[in-house]
């Protein structure tokens, strides 16, 4: 864009006239994407207070004047921010820190980012001899933020061999990487998404004893690699303090993810092609599991019905639309609306869902026992005084059928929009 301001009086006029049919379009154009802001007739920046702001904690509209939250161009703003992060390039690293992210769903997971943060700690500890972070990823991906996640070098291995559950092929590739570059550290997420398995395979193959369940590292002069770590042992009941070995499987939140810098994320290739492997494990693919039918104890998101549910079709429909697993209070089971294996509570299943939505459940102690280890509890209930409300992180007082209906509408609407956008 040129630096000279070119003015278009007609557009400025439209911009000032809120009732003009083209008002918003023009605003957007003038404001460079932010319809809430444009350059006024005499070069002053103008703001439209009606399109800015967000809902404050007490339901009042708040206008944010920091400039971050402006207009519809959130993505653009974020991009601008990343662009402004300083780019750190490590041309000739003193050593490598290898990370093997899970890349669940083709993207870096939060856990992956934490590990990359940990990798940066190791790599950047000595400014005189900086290391580089090497990420090894497998298969197709949709991630475009490798640079922002702190990756200097990227080894991307693709091909049918390493797709799906292919531990043997992936292991072969990692061994090749080890042989090619011999990183000083290997960091792998200790996660059910694959890291825990692959990391152990790698350590076993290379005959090195890894640290597992690592959640903290500290610089330590005595240790071989200069670091000591704290790791969970004995099924999470012990903390083991030991020097950090070359191979570490680390837990989520072991470090802060990288946020201030950008890195090169330059692609590497293995010096030699991978030898073809004869796999003894064949992946027959994922088995379709209906979320509603997932065992309660394994479910991550439960929509649970109690005596306050009258519209059962509506409830089942809601569970289906939300993709939630169905749960129930004992009364709902006793009354024959739900199967017995759906009962949550003292005499039912103790669930560990991250989100538990209790619809028309009063929160008897026997029921609450069953949801002790749920992270977030949402209650939809008519009675603001009932115990479930006290337990809930978010409670909506209202008729269960209506709220569910509205929720279903919202979700469907959002899906529709997404489809249209795509």
């Amino acid at each position, binding site marked *: 864009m040129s630096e000279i301001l070119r003015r278009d009086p007609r557009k400025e006029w439209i911009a000032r006239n809120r009732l003009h049919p083209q008002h918003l379009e023009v605003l957007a154009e003038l404001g460079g994407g932010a319809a809430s802001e444009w350059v006024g007739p005499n070069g002053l920046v103008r703001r439209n207070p009606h399109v800015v702001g967000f809902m*404050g*904690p007490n339901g009042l509209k708040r206008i*944010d004047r*920091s400039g971050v939250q402006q207009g519809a161009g959130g993505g653009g703003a974020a991009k601008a921010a990343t662009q402004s992060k300083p780019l750190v390039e490590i041309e000739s690293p003193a050593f490598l820190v290898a990370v093997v992210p899970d890349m669940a769903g083709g993207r870096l997971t939060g856990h992956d980012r934490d590990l990359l943060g940990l990798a940066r700690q190791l790599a950047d500890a000595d400014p005189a001899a900086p290391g580089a972070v090497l990420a090894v990823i497998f298969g197709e991906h949709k991630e475009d933020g490798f640079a922002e996640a702190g990756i200097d070098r990227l080894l991307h291995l693709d091909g049918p061999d390493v797709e799906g*559950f292919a531990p043997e092929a992936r292991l072969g590739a990692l061994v090749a990487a080890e042989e090619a570059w011999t990183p000083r550290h290997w960091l792998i997420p200790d996660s*059910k998404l694959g890291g825990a398995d692959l990391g*152990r*395979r790698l350590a*076993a193959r290379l005959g090195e*004893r*890894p640290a*597992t*369940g690592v*959640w903290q590292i500290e610089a330590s002069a005595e240790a071989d690699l200069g670091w000591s770590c704290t790791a*969970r*042992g*004995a*099924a*999470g*009941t*012990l*903390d*083991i*303090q*030991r020097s950090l070995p070359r191979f570490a499987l680390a837990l989520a*939140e072991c470090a802060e993810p990288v946020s*201030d810098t950008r890195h090169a994320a330059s692609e590497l290739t293995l010096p030699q092609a991978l030898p073809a492997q004869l796999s*003894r*494990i*064949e*992946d*027959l*693919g*994922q*088995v379709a*599991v209906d*979320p509603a039918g997932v065992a309660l*104890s394994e*479910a*991550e998101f439960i929509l649970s019905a109690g005596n306050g549910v009258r519209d059962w079709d509506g409830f089942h429909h809601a569970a289906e639309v*939300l*993709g*939630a697993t169905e749960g129930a209070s004992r009364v709902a089971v006793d009354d024959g609306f739900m199967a017995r294996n759906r009962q949550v509570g003292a005499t039912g299943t103790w669930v560990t869902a991250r*989100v538990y*939505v209790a619809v028309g459940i009063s929160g008897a102690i026997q029921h609450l026992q069953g949801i002790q280890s749920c*992270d977030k509890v*949402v209650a*939809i209930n008519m009675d603001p005084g009932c115990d479930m*409300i006290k337990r809930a*992180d*978010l*409670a*909506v*007082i*209202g008729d269960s059928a209506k*709220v569910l*209906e*509205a*929720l279903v509408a*919202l979700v469907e609407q959002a899906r529709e929009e997404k489809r249209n956008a795509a």
Partner: protein
Amino acid sequence: MTVLVSVGRHPVTGRSRRADQDARGVELARTLPGAEIGLLHAGRLDEGNEAALRGYLGMGFDALTLIEQPESSDALPALAEALKAAPPQLVIAGERAEQGEGSGLLPYLLAERLGWPLVSGLAAVEEVSGGVATVLQALPRGQRRRLKVRLPAIVTVDAAAPAPRQSAFGPAQRGRLEVSEAPVAADVEMAEWQFKPARKRPKRLKIVKAASARDRFKAAAAKAEGGGGQVLTDVTAEQGAAAVYKLLKEEGVLR
């Protein structure tokens, strides 16, 4: 097939017991029709351990093979030798032990040593026939993946595997512990570590790297909004639903 069993530790009281995952492994083995199941443990034999090991016998077994090893020794060579001597088709193990390092490495090291394939995190074994096992691997959110693995193989069980049957007192008392000896390999490295009861990990604070005071203020305000125990009274169904929707979105459970 052989199930590797270890002495577990109750998470609250620390009393020894059959380890939950190993017991699931035993249960998994029992679900296979016609399977000949052997139980194998390497470790020390004392009163507490014996009670715990008898817990496995109480699941309906006559005997358990116990390779005596002193405490804090490396069970790997002993187990590998025993399995090499009489190789089973399938070795089932828990994902990690409830005592000591509990690194979950043992099955991997065993597989490496024996040169067998390993599949981790099983929810079920569907079929064993013709030297191949069809298994279901547990994925997060109750999802499953079907795999075929060439035998002999080592598999580990997931918490999604069927819950272990009750251990009955009678068979537990009557069952035999068949004690055998094996060379001992001391775990030298582990002797250097420090063990402490697990500390509670600090909850991660949302660190806001804000360029300006306004950003920081905004972040603080946003956090208060998400704070726990929010009760929405006198809202329309739509407003309530919107709040719920927002939370579900934030938690990432909607897809």
